[in-house]
């Protein structure tokens, strides 16, 4: 089957042909690369693979963090790769991918909300403090990304939030 893999904004077309159990012929095509590999792939426990490619041996961890989004660790080098089969990818494009809403303040770390500086309707200037999050004894201050009005505050003091959560929206 053919897949589209996306790494750091670039797309690569990957065709897989299963030659026998665990043996794949892989064709990779992208703007900056064109390659054909034959891989001998063995899975060891959860999500560690022993991969032989032209007798080179690789220890590869492949973990699906979210649907279609993979954390791949090859001999200690980390790659974050999104993979979809061609059909799904086309469909997704047609439907328009869900992007970061402009003005959203998102956290990349989980934590506890220790301070909220604004309420809905407040006017803020770019750089004004909006929310302070604490995790592992470290405080992180989130600032307004632009001048505007606070459209929504999604957290209150004492809340615990996950990584990726939207804290507030500035319009």
């Amino acid at each position: 089957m053919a897949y589209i893999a996306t790494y750091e904004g670039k797309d690569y077309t990957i065709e897989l042909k299963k030659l026998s159990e665990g043996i794949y012929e892989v064709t990779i095509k992208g703007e900056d690369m064109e390659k054909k590999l034959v891989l001998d792939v063995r899975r060891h426990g959860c999500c560690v693979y022993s991969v032989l490619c032209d007798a080179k041996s690789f220890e590869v961890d492949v973990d699906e963090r979210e649907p279609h989004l993979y954390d791949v660790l090859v001999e200690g080098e980390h790659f974050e790769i999104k993979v979809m089969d061609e059909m799904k990818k086309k469909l997704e494009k047609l439907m328009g991918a869900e992007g970061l809403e402009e003005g959203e303040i998102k956290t990349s770390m989980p934590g506890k909300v220790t301070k909220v500086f604004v309420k809905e309707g407040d006017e803020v200037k770019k750089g004004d403090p909006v929310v302070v999050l604490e995790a592992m004894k470290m405080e992180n201050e989130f600032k307004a990304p632009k001048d505007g009005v606070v459209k929504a505050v999604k957290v209150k003091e004492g809340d615990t939030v996950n990584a990726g959560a939207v804290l507030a929206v500035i319009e």
Partner: protein
Amino acid sequence: MFKKVLIANRSEIAVRIIRACKEMGISTVAVYSDVDRDALHVRYADEAYHIGPPPARESYLRIDKIIDVAKKAGADAIHPGYGFLAENAEFAEACEKAGIVFIGPPKKAIVEMGSKTVARQTAMKAGVPVIPGTLEPLSDEEIFAKAKEIGFPIMLKAVAGGGGKGMRLIKSEDELESAIRLARSEAKGAFGDDSLYIEKYIENPRHVEMQILVDTFGNGIWLGERECSIQRRHQKVIEEAPSVILDEELRRKMGEAALKVAFAAGYYSAGTVEFLVDKDRNFYFLEVNTRLQVEHPVTEMVTGIDIVKEMISIAAGSKLSYTQDDVKMMGASIEFRVYAEDPFNNFVPSPGTITGLRMPGGPGVRVDAGVFEGSVVPMEYDPIIAKLIVWGRDRKEAVERGKRALKEFVVKGIKTTIPFHKLVLDHPAFLTGEFDTTFVDSVIEEFKKTKKKAGFDIALAMAAIAEEEKTPSVSRVCPDKGGLNPWKFFGRRLLMRSCWF
């Protein structure tokens, strides 16, 4: 010797202390907060008691609760580890009142060494060099007089200061007058207090710390130095022993100076005396850390002395089991702190579940871990989850071994500092030992510039293969769900991702 020791801590240091106790035939008592019921230290200890909700001030910092547990469990001593209550004199006192031995220095030494001023005075009385200058507020006239006395360059500092505010480097006398005026005004504005003091400016200083062990009979030994030059957010990430800038002679002098301070302070237990060393290899006393340090293993690796065990023995009233002549430093050791942090995103915390964990092994490798596969790293505490310590016949071998071991070390599900350590070891400045406080940033910057990573083609291919393996098109391979053997079933699941959907 003690029969039962309570460890008033968590994570890797609690596990470290439990291991020492087990090897000494001492029973161990763990304490845990709500989020730590599943922590490794609870599993490793002989007994475990719940002490409260996740926030440290409601659990690991609750002196009353911890003393209660110790009494209930019949513990005859408490080891505080590092952090939390380790340097809390009130806690040492509470232990004493409860008739429980505090495994650490005497209360008086904690209090006195906890005060910068008293520690400095103690060192001076003991004849140990301190950075020339004052700690007390000075008038303008006094500043002029003192500056001439200690010689330029000097640093002008705000008494109430911190974070560099109100701090000024003065290279000659003619700069002094206006500098004083500006610094006072800045300090006033920042802290509401315009008091200033001065200190000799040390050019290109290196922080070097000396490990000591002192018993209650007046015997003391020094175990050589550690250097901890790589820090992020003023917290250490890599430490090593020995320091590249010390030789036998200077090491002995600093070791003896460290002991002088300890004896003058009436100190016993394990302790660390910090020094600044200038470019001409003059050393100046800075402060005493009255606790077991995170980085104690590098000293253990080069001396073969188990610092935790000695600390426990001293507290139990035993004499030191080594003399200074027994202490031989051999080879080199480096410690890498594995933090639950994202090194490529400003080291922001990365608590969460460890979904995969493979630890390195083989010669010259030690891992002090506080987690296991499946562990949840809570957001409430320090981000340290493990320490990798390597030993080599010399620094070069330790570095090569570190690279090898870091490659074997895999933590999945959360971000860690492991990839950062690899970059550091590959950096030429680390190998020569010539790095400064901007080193961490420059390592990360350089990495971000060099995009090309090895194994990219394999990564792309494997992501696609993983995606293919889970597609329902091959789900015919898992008809047999009736098996009774959990492992078999488990194994089958793992091997046939296609069944997950």
